[in-house]
């Protein structure tokens, strides 16, 4: 089975965003893999291994791809260090990209790679656009399951059963392969990913795995193809345009109230919440 995971680099969300002259100040930014994309890589790894034995299922392959500048190779290496097998970087400046361009490139890469599943983060935490997975499914005419909180790969590997958290509970949806999956935070809970290989009782640590030192060393030797958008015949140009950037207004300081009656009164009179 082959899984393709597109990943994007984003400025470290744990650090403060700086805005200068109507644009995000990226000088000296610490770039990291978009957290949801890390979850996507983790999902792919869990789907294709025996977690208890720590061994990959025979014949399984995970390909990570990014569309971005030369520096973005580092985020691909991080994914290789946690266990992905191979990487593709399509060279492009961030400014030359929007969801449409990225999808146009991915469609071509998918045509060449023929993966059984494409797993993406539900959104990138920089623009929070939440578009690529859905657009990709539309363009390819493939089945999609978005915001996956759990996934189980059928024993015959022909379909996945996906749990999606919706307002009324959890919706389960089975999609056949090839298909598109976008993942949410809870996909990296200890029992969220099942593949009929890892024993059902096995609990993963919460969250995506850290690269081991061996993995980091091995990643340096794993193959990374570098392509251009034109190699895939992509001529699409961005249709979205950045008009301006400003930080949200600072939140007013909280209040500490003396007792419950005061709280209720404030909620009713000031916040008009009840």
């Amino acid at each position, binding site marked *: 089975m082959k899984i393709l995971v597109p990943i994007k680099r984003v400025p470290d969300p*744990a650090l403060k965003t700086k805005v200068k002259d109507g644009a995000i100040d990226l000088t000296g930014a610490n770039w*990291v893999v978009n957290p949801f994309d890390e979850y996507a890589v983790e999902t792919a790894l869990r789907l294709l291994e025996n977690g208890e034995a720590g061994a990959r299922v025979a014949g399984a392959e995970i390909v990570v791809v990014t569309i971005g500048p030369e520096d973005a190779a580092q985020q691909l*290496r*991080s994914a290789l260090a946690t266990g992905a097998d191979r990487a593709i970087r399509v060279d492009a400046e961030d400014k030359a990209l929007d969801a449409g361009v990225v999808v146009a490139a991915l469609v071509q890469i998918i045509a060449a790679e023929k993966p059984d599943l494409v797993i993406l983060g539900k959104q990138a935490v920089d623009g929070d656009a939440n578009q690529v997975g859905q657009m990709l499914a539309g363009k390819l005419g493939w089945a999609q399951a978005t915001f996956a909180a759990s996934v189980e790969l059928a024993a015959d590997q022909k379909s996945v059963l996906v749990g999606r958290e919706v307002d009324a509970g959890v919706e389960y949806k089975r999609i056949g392969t090839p298909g598109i999956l976008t993942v949410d935070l809870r996909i990296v809970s200890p029992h969220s990913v099942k593949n009929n290989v890892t024993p059902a009782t096995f609990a993963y640590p919460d969250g995506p795995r*850290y690269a*081991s*030192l061996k993995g980091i*060393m091995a990643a340096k030797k794993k193959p990374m193809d570098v392509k251009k958008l034109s190699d895939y015949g992509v001529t699409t140009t961005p249709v979205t345009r950045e008009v301006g950037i400003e930080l949200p207004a600072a939140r007013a300081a909280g209040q500490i109230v003396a007792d419950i009656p005061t709280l209720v009164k404030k909620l009713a009179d000031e916040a008009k919440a009840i």
Partner: protein
Amino acid sequence: MLRQTVRDLTREIVEPQAMAHDESGTMNRGLLRKLGELGLLGVTIPEADGGAGLDATASVIVHEELAYSDPGFALAYLAHALLFVNNFYWAASPAQRAKYLPRTLTGEWIGGMGMTEPSVGTDVLGMQTVARKVGDEYVLDGRKIFITNAVEGDVFCAYAKLDERITTFVVERGTPGFSTSDKIPKMGMRASTMGELIFDGCRLPAGNLLGREGGGITNMMRNLEIERLGLAAMSLGIARRCLDVMVAYSMERRAFGQPLHELGQIQRYIGESFAKTEAIRALTYGVAATVSPDSRNRLGTDAAKLFAATAAKEVADAAVQVLGGYGYCAEYRVEQFLRDAKLIEIGGGTIEAHQKNITRDLTRR
């Protein structure tokens, strides 16, 4: 990528547990085990023997990043990964490696090293622990003090005099005649423990001789440089953290109608702390690049640790000062970093010992 990985893991799993371990004065054994799973306990051990085969710079990166959140734990890590694992590895026979490496590389066993004694520290050659050869065994008598990881350690490199010549032995917990004391309370580095190693007619099989008889000084010297770099790197982590905290605080806190960083005297703390931090970084990484199993830099490592220890302590002190009363209290943790930083002026060679060594080397004809 090594730095990013250790930084992420420090932020996510080291930082949240640090304060509690400083308060309780305990070492987090599970966390060391986790580092073992990720291969971080054998950074400098060749790949063929289960390590990562990386250089002194890699070891410096790991120590720096861990110390940014938890210098005490970083010290326990140093005692395990450098004072035991690295020290042991380069002196050990293949049979000894096969016996002790696998369990210490995973962190299943914790290691430490015993050199200092109740009546001699800096004057190592004056050590009084003795070893005698009795039949097929060595019998050790004496005590070691201030030994990091003594309380929870499973295996130690210990130095003793055999016919007046310093010799290294591997000592396992459970060996007849060997015991350890309770933990010794201390000022800082409280997320690691220290205690005594007590040898009272401790009987070791001949196979526990590490290296050759009388080879203790060679082993000691071989390891000294990477140990000092590890401690200098911890100073860098401490300085970086304290600088970050003081800068952030100076932007939030206001006094006399302006943010603290507008005040000239505060600017001096920030400016000098930044310069010191950068200087520690440049010196430590510069020297690290010259140290490997087959290239040594005694002067450089003495200089790096001498400078880093005091500079980091001063940066921590400046952070406490900039934060005022909040700095003296536990919440922002800078008082802890000041307590922790002080150790590096003492452990692994006092600053006076570095001054003495440097001068001796420079005046040698």
